């Protein structure tokens, strides 16, 4: 039916701390692609854009944003979308993603990925906005499930039903964050394996693997820890269902030397080679 973008293999979130290690590496690094945080490169000039230019010469790049606020009831931020489009023209990403969340209303940005109730009203609202954004950018975008700490009394359906329905109605891609499925599953006591089973295979273009931390009676999506065993297990199940999907380690805080992330990425590779055939694991490049 729909033409999925190519399987890129195993990548990393690009972080400024690693620029020298990546660009000065004498031997080729076992990284197939990079995800950039869009907002960090939506600047006028200087080092960020210079680094991006050098990275994109050598690696496929995807763009991942945190400020689209697609589920907000505030008007779409066209100025932001304009700058996002300009960056996309420059970076030539394989795809662009953001989160199924809202970040603020009334002109305020809370800089958080806030959840919404899973209602018919929200479905219509969010699917409509994704369509508008896709029309504006002239391409499908990928929407990521977030970690959440609360649910809403008014929800009329499960998160997985909502996510699957959004993808269908908006005709968008999905970025499945395996850690977020695990964290939300623990926080809301749902079966994370079932969540994954309910997500349509043909929509998922990317996996995030990340770490979280433990609060009081709650798991928090902090991206400051290694990926835990349970998340790797869930990843294995996801591979069985979705087949080859571009996979990356998403580390945003307490950032270790590159080698540590490469070791985590190796673990993902190893799991994938146990599930997928060499033929399936061939990347487009």
């Amino acid at each position: 039916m729909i033409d999925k973008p190519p399987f890129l293999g195993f990548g990393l979130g690009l972080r400024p701390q690693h620029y020298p290690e990546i660009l000065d590496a004498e031997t080729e690094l076992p990284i197939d692609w990079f995800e950039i945080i869009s907002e960090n490169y939506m600047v006028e000039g200087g080092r960020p854009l210079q680094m991006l230019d050098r990275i994109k010469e050598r690696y496929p790049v995807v763009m991942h944003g945190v400020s689209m606020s697609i589920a907000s009831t505030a008007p779409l931020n066209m100025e932001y979308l304009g700058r996002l489009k300009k960056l996309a023209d420059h970076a030539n990403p394989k795809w662009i993603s953001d989160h199924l969340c809202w970040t603020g209303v009334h002109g305020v940005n809370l800089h958080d990925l806030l959840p919404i109730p899973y209602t018919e009203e929200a479905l219509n609202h969010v699917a409509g906005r994704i369509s508008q954004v896709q029309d504006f950018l002239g391409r499908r975008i990928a929407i990521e499930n977030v970690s959440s700490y609360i649910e809403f009394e008014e929800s009329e359906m499960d998160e997985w039903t909502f996510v699957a329905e959004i993808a269908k109605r908006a005709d968008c891609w999905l970025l499945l964050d395996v850690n977020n499925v695990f964290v939300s599953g623990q926080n809301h006591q749902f079966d994370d394996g079932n969540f994954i089973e309910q997500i349509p295979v043909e929509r998922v273009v990317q996996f995030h693997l990340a770490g979280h931390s433990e609060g009081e009676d709650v798991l928090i999506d902090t991206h400051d820890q290694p990926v835990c065993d349970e998340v790797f297990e869930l990843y294995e199940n996801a591979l069985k269902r979705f087949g080859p999907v571009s996979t990356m380690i998403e580390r945003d805080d307490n950032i270790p030397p590159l080698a540590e992330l490469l070791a985590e990425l190796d673990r993902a590779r190893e799991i994938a080679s146990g599930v997928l055939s060499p033929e399936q694991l061939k990347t487009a490049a």
Partner: protein
Amino acid sequence: MAKNLANLQSQMQNDILKRESRVLKRFSVPKHTTAEKRFAVYQDAYQIRLIEVLSEDYENTWKYLGDEQFYKLAVEYIKAHPSDQTNMRWFGRHFPEFLTQCSLSSDHPILTEIASIEKAIEDAFDAVDDQTATMENLAAIPPEAITGLTFKLKSACRLLRQQTNALDIYMALVNEQTPDALESFDQPRHTLVWRNDMMCQYRALDAEEGMLVDLMFDGKDFALMCEMAATMRDADSAATRVAGHITNWLQTQVISELIIAK
């Protein structure tokens, strides 16, 4: 319009910003915990995240103030200037100015000046990549056009005029040394912040160079720069001194364009 969702988002945002709890009744959480505790994750994260951004962007102002005072001011700032930016990079842009008005500041004009140095460096970091004028460009200017020559500074350039030894204190803080005692001056001191080969740089300018950079920012020409330099120090060598500065600015990527008068 998603009326119910809009109402929920307004309530939830209000309760995050003001740490209120009206929205709690709309949440559902497992029995072993409470809606208060779970919502507090969002309420805490909001403040922690923004304080973290401020403490990164104004690391040396933080060092100068110490944890407790910086935290207090950061909390006040967050209340006065909730973020309206899609990039946290810009959240702290009003902080130097905020420091001039805050309660602690009346006897600490130094705070704003240290924070201004940090902001200027941040701004230089990702300013527009405009062209860089070179010595070759200068050599190509016809001799008769030199006196009317004006200069466009690179977008990354900032000229700070400060009343205290903020730069010395800032540099000591950067180098993890004990800063000198605070000093105030009658005549402002000039600091130039700019970007050379993608690296942010800063240096103190003496009174003459500070005045000359000021004149360049104002679009004044070489002849006027020489005239003004002649009033400050030895008149006979004024043109040579100005030419020396121009050479230095060209070599360190301070100037974007040499403009010949029409």
